[in-house]
Each structure stands twice: as C-alpha cells, then as structure tokens.
C-alpha cells in the first residue's frame, strides 16, 4: 500500500500522523519505514520531513531499520524479571541463533527487549507481532517458535 492511499483514508491532519505511520509500516514485509517512505508521508500530509522523522524515531513501535517478518519482544521489567525473563531471553537466543537486538539471517525473526507489556499476571511474557504469550516455559517457547516457522 502507498502512503497516499493510507493518508487519504485516515485524513491528512497532523494528529493522524502516528496512525498513518503505524499502518504504513504494517503493510511492509520487513516492519520498517525507509527515509523515502517517511518523505512520502511528509509530502502527502504537508508536514516538514523533520516532524515525520522525529515521530518515527521517537516511538518504539515504529522502526527505521529493517526488522524480521515477526518481531519477538521480551518484557524486561521487574514483574517478568523476577519470574525468569532472563532465561526466556537465553532460550530464544539459542533457538534463533541470534543475540537480542538482532534479526535472523532468513529475515523471519527479530528479537528485542520491550518495556512492560501490561500482562504481568502472566509473567514471564513475550509479544510476537500483535499476540501475547504468557506463563512461558522452555517447552512452550519451542512450540511457539516452531509454529511461526511453519506458517
């Protein structure tokens, strides 16, 4: 989908900027927006490029570097931490053969930390794309990752 289409549908007032960028990013296979994409949005909305860049770089759900098809976020805050999120990170690093902050060579997964996701009663928790997985164990993690590899 093009910036033009999305901007026309959502409206071109500045308050729509974040939601336009989010949707534009979602339409991309690698979950990020290039400089060209951001310039296109600025042009469509009649906003300075600096404004669009500052918004895109400020929010953690918006990416300006290529990511995997699936983004795996591990909560690192205290409620998950005291329930073993550290182990979850190690298990995922082993399963994916990458370190936190990296993307697999096949471009399928990115592994990153996130601030609290608000599902602390299910700690430890990860989020993959839009979906939350909680009460994680090694066995569950293996299954979850295998599931994404199959699809």
């Amino acid at each position, binding site marked *: 989908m093009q910036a033009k289409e999305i901007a026309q549908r959502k409206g071109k007032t500045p308050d729509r900027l974040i939601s336009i960028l989010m949707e534009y990013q979602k339409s991309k296979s690698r979950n990020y927006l290039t400089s060209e994409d951001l310039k296109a949005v600025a042009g469509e909305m009649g906003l300075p490029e600096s404004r669009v860049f500052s918004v895109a770089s400020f929010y953690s759900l918006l990416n300006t570097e290529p990511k995997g098809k699936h983004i795996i976020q591990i909560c690192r805050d205290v409620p998950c931490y005291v329930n073993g999120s550290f182990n979850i990170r190690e298990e995922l690093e082993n399963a994916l053969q990458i370190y936190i902050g990296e993307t697999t060579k096949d471009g399928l997964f990115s592994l990153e930390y996130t601030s609290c996701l*608000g599902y602390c009663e299910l700690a430890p928790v990860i989020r993959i794309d839009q979906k939350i997985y909680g009460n994680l164990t090694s066995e569950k993690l293996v299954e979850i990752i295998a599931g994404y590899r199959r699809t």
Partner: protein
Amino acid sequence: MDNIEKKLLTKRFGQIDPLSIDDYIAKDGYAALQKAVKITPAKIVDSVKASGLLGRGGAAYPVGLKMEAVQKAKSPEKYLICNADEGEPGNFKDRYLMENDPHQIIEGMVISAFAAGATKGYMFIRGEYSRPIYIMTNAIKAAAEKGYLGQNILDSGLNFEIELYTGAGSYVCGEEFALMLCLEGNPGRSTFKPPFPTTEGLYNKPTQINNVESFANIPHIVLDGAEAFAKIGTEHSKGTKLISLCGNVRSKGLYEVPFGVTIRDIIEKLGRGVAGSGIKMVQLGGASGSCLPANMLGLALDYKEMADDDLTFGSGAIIVMDDSIDVLDIVRNTLEFFRHESCGKCTPCREGIEHLVILLDKFIEGVATKKDLELLETLIETIKQTSICGLGQAAPTSLRTTLKYFRKEYTSKIKKHHAKVI
C-alpha cells in the same frame, strides 16, 4: 479465610460479554447516565467532589476538582481524555477494565462530559494493547448506535463523541502533557506546568484528562450517590482500588479491595503469599514506586497513611519479590527502564539517570566509595527536584527508598580500604 475483596468496578466481570452492549444495559448499564442527564451538571460535579474520588492514575488529584475547573473554563471547545496508556511496569488494571467492562468507562466519560461541558472525547490506548483496542472500538461504535454517544444524547442537548487513538510505544505518553502531544501527532515530550490541562490542554483548550479507573468510578457515584460511595474505604481514601498483584506471589492477578486493607492482607489472603522462603521486598505502584521491606507490610492502603510515611501506592500495582532476589539488581533493572523511557528533553532525567546507573554499578561491582554514596544521594535529590515531569521525578524512587530501607545492601558494598596508588 475472610474475603477482603469489594467488587464495585469489577462486579460485572465474567457476568457480561464485553462485546455486548445489551448485556451491559441488562446489568444497570447506562442507568447512571439516564439519571445524570436529569440533574444539572453543577450537581454532578458537587456529587463527584463529595464522593472524595481521587484520580486513580497515580497522582491522586481530586477528580471533582478537575471536572469543576473544566466546567468553569470559558471556551467554546472543551475536551475530555481517557488515559489508557497503561505502561507502568506491574500494572494491568486498566486493561482488565477495558477487556471486561468497556461500557462502564464510556458511561463514565459521557457523564463527565455532561458535567464538565466537554464537546469531544478521546480514548487514548497504548499501542501494545491489541485486545483492549479491539473491544473499546467495538464498544464506542455500539454506544453510538444506541444513542449514548452522538448528537443530543438522551434528549439532554449534549453532543459528545469519542474517538479512539492509539500510542506507538512510549511510557512517557502516560504523562498527561506528553499524551496530549502524542494525540496531536508529535513525539511525546513533557512540558512545564502550569498551565495545567484544565486551562490549556489538548490544542490549548480546557481538557479534563483522567485515568480509565477514575472514569469507571463515575457511574457508581452517580447511581449509588456520593454518600454511599464515600462509605466505602477510609476517612481519607474513598471507594475501592484495583490492585495489580504480581511478582513472586502464588496467585497473581487483578483484585478489587476497599481502601484500608493492609498490603500484607492483599499479598497473603488474595495472592496466597510467596512460593519461596519469604518476602524480601515489595514495590508499590510499579517501577516508579517505593520499595518496602517485609516488616512494613502492615501499612494500610490509604493515601494519608502512605503519605505520612513519605510513600505512595501510585496506580495500585503491588510487585512482590521473594528472598531469591538481589535488591541492587532489581533497582538496576528499574533504572534501566527509566533510562530507556526518558524522553530526553530535560537534562536531569536524560543525563541524571545515566549517572545513577554508573554509580549503582560501582556498588554492584564492589568498588564504590563513601563519596560515591554521597554523590548518589545528591544526584537522587537533584533528579527528583528538577526533572520536568513525573517520569524523571519518580525515576530514582526505587533507589531512594532502598537506600532508606535496605541501606546495608549498599554500605556493605563500599570498599573498606582504598588501594594505594602505585
């Protein structure tokens, strides 16, 4: 074991389908709004003031006073914002409210709009909350179809719509000015106060901004009356509080209790205690909250009792940690959170937190000196006093309170003898 819960905001949980407005209506839903539009806005404001309802987002500012300020403000446009940018680590109560009883929040917002004279409403939900976003979107649509939102609501003359906006991953956007900047399509960086939102808020118009739980209380105050509401709780803290109980307790989850119950009762009776050998530390409110030792858990959930001890319970998270944790390790984790979430606008927060981590690491590595301890305490106070917004002001709280209640954990790490410089 006696039941210490009191279900007011959660009484419909599990009883209704959150996607069905008819279910809500069948359980007294929108009855408070029917009642509200037949009384005057001024009387509703009086009632909310008399109820003693304090804001549930963490700052505990009287909701009735915000409502009154917006009502008295002279402006053709006034806004109402529901802050559902729940990002404080350990909190998930607003998610439960949105997922289980979305119309309770909408009804609270419409009544507030009628009282404050708001012309437009905004629901701002953090971007990570996919399911709450889906449920609230559905609920807003259903409420509009039934005429609880829109033009001339229930023949009251009130025109009020709610538009849903979502965040894009930023803790600081839970702070009211950062949130409003985000709504306007900017990076969410806080600004100096005053002016406050009630005079110059969204698009510089008078704005009532309240937490999800605050709005959810409004229908109950209107329907049951301020007097009945004020009977729940204690002299200084009225009503119930939603508690996000998490960490190492056996039964993590959401609980609703009247004010006045003790932290220990919440942990032992509702959370069924910790699985490990014992409780080492409890953090109240979330990452920005105070850390307490086990011998202080007799404290009651009460704004005044907490304030007397220079404590707060923020938005009601209770993070319980057992004996296996290391205090300094947890504090470091908390500081990492703030270092990541600082918006970078003001120096005390942006640079100060960085240096707190550097100093704390010296303790963790066992190379700290007495001078480092002094420096740490000065820096904590500086950040607390001079940061622009609540994020920076609260960032050193875990450090400050562990220095007070777990001081030995720090002093035992100070180097006894300085190595001679060769």
